[in-house]
């Protein structure tokens, strides 16, 4: 115990003696670990934040009838089964579609009817599943509305209709005809621009497909959706749930690039911190050459002196690591606020990781200075050098 007390007394006083040098090494560790902790904190959150951000670009899952069977339709009950498999807080929205070809009368005096794709859907889910749709006019917020229609931009152009006009559509299959008021025109940038949209129940009625749907689009939050999709496919019969590769792969690519960039930055920061601490420690060893020689002359073995230096380095690194983490966490909040407009979560694991990293860096940086310690000859003290 007395030996330990003396050891700590020597280490503590050695720190005090070289405040400015110690401060330089400490500052280097704080800055280095601060940036790294900040990057890691952001990185842990980035996939969640990015997932949220990418939901703006639409659905990331699509549900269809099992491709192994000849069914091209499924019951809406299947959709509900799949919906129930997701956590409510992660399911942003889901929109079923029922497709069918109908004839639509073009605007004008002549009785010209053109085939168009009729899509029955839930308009109240468009904001969640297709937030990028540009809507002119209004979508049908009420699922029971059965006398209004929303036209894709190209379809409106081809048929010659505008908001407020009345459009007649005819299902040749069932012989049902319906007059519908155009309540909105949508621009989507995809095939939906050529389609005609009505409420799902109306489409089912016109097409004679009660409770049927062809596909459903899901917008779900969170990473690692694949295992979840796999599990749902196993447990719900007659369906095929798939990730929409375009979104999923761009999400993955962006994350991969960010990860590579982060590792590169971390390596550069670690290297510069290592160099700075190592140079400072070498200066400290040079300045303390006489003291080291004296201690050896008094009977200290190399291991005694090395342990003293490594302890100094470890204390410096440990405290620097914790302070660095604190600063890094604040930095992460600043990044979170400016980039994602939200706070970065506190992760307890980053604290010990920062501590261990800083201690390791400090000890690694002391390898060359420690080698210098070994080379110091106790005779330098007698020579009066």
């Amino acid at each position, binding site marked *: 115990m007395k*030996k330990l007390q003396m050891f700590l007394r020597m280490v503590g006083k050695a720190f005090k003696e070289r405040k400015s040098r110690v401060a330089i090494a400490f500052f280097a560790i704080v800055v280095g670990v601060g940036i790294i902790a900040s990057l890691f904190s952001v990185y842990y959150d980035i996939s969640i934040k990015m997932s949220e951000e990418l939901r703006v670009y639409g659905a990331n899952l699509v549900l269809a009838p099992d491709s192994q069977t000849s069914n091209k339709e499924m019951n809406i009950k299947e959709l509900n089964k799949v919906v129930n498999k997701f956590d409510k807080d992660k399911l942003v929205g889901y929109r079923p579609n029922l497709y069918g070809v109908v004839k639509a009368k073009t605007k004008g005096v002549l009785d010209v009817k053109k085939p168009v794709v009729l899509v029955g859907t839930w308009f109240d889910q468009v904001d969640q599943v297709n937030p990028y749709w540009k809507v002119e006019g209004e979508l049908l917020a009420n699922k029971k509305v059965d006398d209004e229609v929303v036209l894709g931009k190209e379809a409106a152009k081809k048929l010659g209709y505008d908001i407020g006009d009345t459009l007649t559509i005819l299902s040749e299959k069932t012989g049902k005809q319906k007059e519908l008021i155009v309540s909105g025109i949508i621009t989507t940038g995809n095939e939906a621009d050529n389609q005609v949209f009505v409420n799902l129940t109306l489409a089912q009625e016109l097409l004679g497909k009660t409770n049927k749907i062809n596909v459903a689009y899901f917008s779900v939050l969170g990473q690692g959706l694949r295992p979840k999709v796999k599990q749902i496919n196993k447990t719900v019969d007659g369906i095929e749930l798939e990730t929409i590769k375009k979104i999923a792969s761009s999400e993955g690519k962006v994350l991969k690039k960010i990860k590579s960039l982060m590792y590169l930055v971390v390596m550069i920061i670690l290297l510069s911190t290592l160099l700075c601490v190592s140079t400072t420690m070498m200066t400290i060893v040079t300045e303390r050459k006489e003291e080291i020689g004296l201690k050896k*002359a008094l*009977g200290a*073995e190399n291991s005694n002196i090395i342990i003293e230096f490594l302890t100094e380095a470890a204390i410096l690194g440990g405290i620097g690591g914790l302070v660095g983490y604190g600063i890094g966490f604040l930095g992460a909040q600043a990044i979170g606020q400016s980039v994602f407009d939200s706070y970065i979560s506190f992760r307890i694991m980053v604290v010990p990781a920062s501590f261990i990293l800083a201690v390791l860096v400090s000890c690694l940086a002391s390898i060359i200075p420690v080698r210098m310690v070994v080379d110091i000859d106790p005779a330098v003290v007698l020579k009066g050098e």
Partner: protein
Amino acid sequence: MGLITLENVSKIYGEDVRALDNVSLDIEEGEWVSIMGPSGSGKSTMLNLIGCMDTPSKGAVKIDSIDISELDKKELTKVRREKIGLVFQQFHLVPYLTAVENVMVAQYYHSMAEEEEARQALERVGLGHRGDHLPKELSGGEQQRVCIARALINYPKLILADEPTGNLDKENENIVLDLFNELHDQGHTIMMVTHDPKVGQLAERQINLDHGKLKDKPQISEDKELVS
């Protein structure tokens, strides 16, 4: 056999630079021996060998019957730690440790740091009241007395002093030499390197070195009381 024995010891640097040339010497326990000679005569080399900081190129150096000639650095450190107390011309105190802590450093590397014992050692050299002062707050003579207290703390067989009064004024020189006299009277073995003939003559025996060789036969001092 004496406490220190040098048998035909040579220390050769490079091809043929003989810092010590076939030196044989015997120092008995309780003896006070001074080593004298001009610069380059081999005093420091002899001190390094007896202080276990170097090994001879030829011959044998025995300290308390241990032949250090074949020892590695770790074993040399152990012998130095166990058997030798060092006193330096430039004091060499750790600047950021107090007087008592400087004494405790030697204890720490030897066995156990006992503050009470370290303070008693300072009392012994007349510095009981200065234990909590830093070296920069002490005079040269006081620093040298801390150095002596540090050399004594582990009860060494030999006190090896390198020009212990070289950096002191007359008053402090007398204080320190009186202290060495006391130590000698108490039975300590002292080996002291000095340029000063008056200081050298305080020893029972003077060894004169010249160009790495013993200049003449070791003599017993006849006027030991001259300075004290």
